[in-house]
């Protein structure tokens, strides 16, 4: 049983309410932080903990905090990114739904560290019922003196405001989120300036993921050094993984990042293996934006070493033979799944979610979807596969925000590792309408011309 820091108490009866949460040891980190620590000391602890952003990019949280500009007389803001719209990712929902006070507690400590008197939770519009849960938790915290004016007599004031999004994936990108929070159209901003200098209403702002901010609670309780001992290398602490697809036990798991991918998929403690005795074909280990890996490269790296569920190991081999930890959305495909169809459904998603500001993403995502549709429905040409490759290449790196990359990578990885399946669709337009390609040979990554 691996150590749990976030979800340990998530299923205690009534933990959603302040009294139970408090009785179970909740809000101790706020007492410790506000009474015994300076904001700088908290930032220092978070740095020591090695905590990396859980929203996708894995940027060290303490470092991000230390970048926040502190001009005299200008308010600063902490914004919690609860937009969680990446296909396959539903860990933040679970945390907020079952143990909302953990997030509120993390937010209070983090707000104190950053000097944010008005802190925002920007939540995905579809999570409407969670808004009520959070608002209830905020009210309870306020009634008990953990929010509002002069918290615990420390002189620190803080309010938390919940703002609902209107259902756009792009509003999870931090600068689009800020625009949306300001009441504008959620178009990502052109950086620089970075939010740490000019964020919400041009004030210095830190945007962090729900899980990142919740993890601040155990870090303060146990100390950064202790936290850093859990996990391995630069993958410290525990990570929430939302597992879905062809597995026996879909759900949210908290892991310490030392277990192997194989154990995660097959052990009964986690996914519990693949139903109906089917074989594993492929997996997207970190949410829809990260590269898909065929089974052989998923369980072992290209060097033949065991692959583990952590930032470094999942990325081993770069994009040629590795993937990313991303946001922890773990999507498993068994032998009956069609990679072409799967790639098409992701392409459709990105086309629909592109904000449309920059031409490569706006036009390229739609183009890729149309070509993939042709291939999937038996109207593809061999040259379409190279064309897809060329389109994704021209989007990647040439856009304002990473959604362009996120749209390009799944297509690139699918062609890189499953080109034979694409070719089979083209060469067997009728058969491909009736049956799936199956496992075929994914023994070796298929050579794809670089560039």
């Amino acid at each position: 049983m691996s150590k749990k820091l976030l979800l340990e108490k998530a299923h205690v009866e009534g933990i959603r309410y302040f009294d139970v949460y408090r009785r179970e040891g909740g809000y101790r980190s706020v007492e410790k932080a506000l009474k015994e620590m300076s904001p700088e000391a908290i930032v220092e602890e978070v740095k020591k903990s090695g905590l990396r952003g859980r929203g996708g990019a894995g940027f060290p949280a303490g470092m991000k905090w230390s970048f926040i500009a502190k001009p005299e007389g200008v308010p600063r803001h902490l914004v919690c990114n609860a937009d969680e719209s990446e296909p396959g990712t539903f860990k933040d929902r679970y945390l907020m739904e079952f143990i909302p006070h953990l997030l509120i507690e993390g937010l209070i400590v983090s707000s104190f560290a950053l000097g944010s008197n008005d802190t925002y939770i920007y939540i995905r519009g579809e999570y409407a019922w969670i808004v009520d849960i959070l608002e209830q938790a905020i009210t309870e915290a306020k009634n008990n003196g953990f929010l509002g004016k002069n918290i615990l007599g420390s002189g620190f004031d803080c309010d938390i405001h919940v703002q609902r999004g209107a259902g756009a994936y792009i509003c999870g990108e931090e600068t689009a989120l800020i625009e949306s929070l300001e009441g504008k159209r959620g178009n990502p901003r052109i950086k620089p300036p970075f939010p740490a200098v000019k964020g919400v209403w041009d004030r210095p702002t830190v945007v962090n993921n729900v899980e990142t901010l919740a993890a601040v609670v155990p870090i303060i309780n146990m100390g950064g050094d202790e936290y850093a001992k859990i996990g391995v290398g630069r993958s410290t602490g525990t990570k929430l993984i939302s597992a879905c697809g062809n597995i026996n036990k879909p759900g949210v798991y908290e892991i310490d990042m030392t277990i192997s991918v194989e154990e995660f998929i097959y052990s009964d403690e986690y996914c519990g293996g693949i139903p109906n005795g089917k074989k594993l074909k492929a997996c997207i280990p970190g949410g829809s934006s990260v590269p898909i890996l065929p089974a052989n490269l998923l369980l072992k790296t290209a060097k033949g070493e065991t692959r583990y569920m952590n930032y470094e190991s999942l990325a081993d081999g770069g994009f040629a033979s590795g993937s990313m930890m991303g946001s922890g959305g773990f999507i498993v495909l068994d032998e009956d799944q069609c990679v072409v169809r799967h790639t098409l459904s992701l392409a459709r998603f990105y086309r629909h979610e592109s904000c449309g500001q920059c031409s490569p993403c706006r036009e390229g995502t739609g183009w890729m979807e149309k070509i993939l549709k042709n291939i999937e429905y038996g109207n593809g040409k061999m040259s379409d596969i190279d064309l897809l490759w060329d389109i994704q290449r021209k989007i990647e790196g040439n856009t304002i925000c990473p959604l362009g990359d996120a749209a390009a990578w799944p297509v690139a990885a699918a062609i890189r590792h499953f080109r034979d399946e694409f070719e089979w669709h083209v060469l067997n337009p009728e058969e491909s309408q009736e049956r799936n390609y199956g496992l075929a040979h994914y023994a070796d990554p298929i050579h794809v011309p670089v560039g």
Partner: protein
Amino acid sequence: MSDQQQLFKVTIDNITIEVPAGTTILNAARKIGGDVAPPAMCYYSKLEGSGGKCRTCLVEVSKGSEKDPRPMPKLVASCRTTVMDGMEVKNITSEKVLDARAGVVEFLLLNHPLDCPICDQAGECHLQDLSYEHGKEGTRYEFQRRTFKKHDIGPYIQLHMTRCILCYRCVFTADQLTKKREHGVLDRGDHAEIATFIEKSLENDFIGNVIDVCPVGALTDKTFRFKNRVWFLKPVDAHRDCPTCSGRVTLWNRGDEVFRVTARKDEWGEVEDTPDGKPGWICNTCRFEKKKTSDWVIEGPRLINRHSVISQGHYAGKVGTHMPTETFEAVNDGRKPKLLMDIHSVSEVNKPEVQLSLIDGPAHSKVFNQNND
């Protein structure tokens, strides 16, 4: 040393120039001029916040600065990246840039109807210029192009979204020249469209300027639509005493008849500054209502900017001039074009040696009479 006096040395395509700190790579390159200046479809120096969107101005920064010589990992939008001292930039000397730019041009043309023959903007369209200079022949796009219905936004302006490249210039113009936020973008991605707040007509003294900033034929002047081709008109600078704006305009005449009025544009296609250093936006009265020569004091002929297709006279046989795969009816909601003037076939006016601004009274010049009447 104050910030304003500080000069940074920047080398673009092996040409070194000194510019004040805070200058963007694009503006530094424009100072050098010629091919070193990257094409810019969305940036507009007179509009705050513009740029960064179209990605045509991407360049490679091969050396970050004297202090931090590391190259930048990705291509950057030159219109939104400021120079550093000692920076080295590659524009047309970078394979990567040329490749990415060709990609961007292809993306911009992907859903464009390529209906230049029936488009009022033809001849002074920045997208047309861009595809001549940076595009590839033919498209790899085999799908139905997206279309939109035409909208009238007010009595003078027509919006034809089908041609829009979503550069946002008109949005910034409407935001910054008028006090209300009523012109913006609805929806997102490739289905995003420019719209006025619930189909409202825009009534503001300066709203006509959206026509001048639009790089393509998406926003056009209804008082001019289909009246004439721009290359049959002769641009002359003129002014009048206007209570609302500077009254400094360009008239587009044929003989003595004023066909349209626009702001004066510089070589980058942006409105020129007036002598007091402010952008020379013009008001609706000057633009739409003063259509008699007697309304104006004529100053003299105006040179046409170096980029424009009309000034270079190369319509045919160049890159990017491929015809759309669909018929015009398909891109025009089933309607047949009323009038077809194919700028792709060579016309007499388009000869390179013909300098439009040197012809007097082009409408009745010999050159025109042979082909048109």
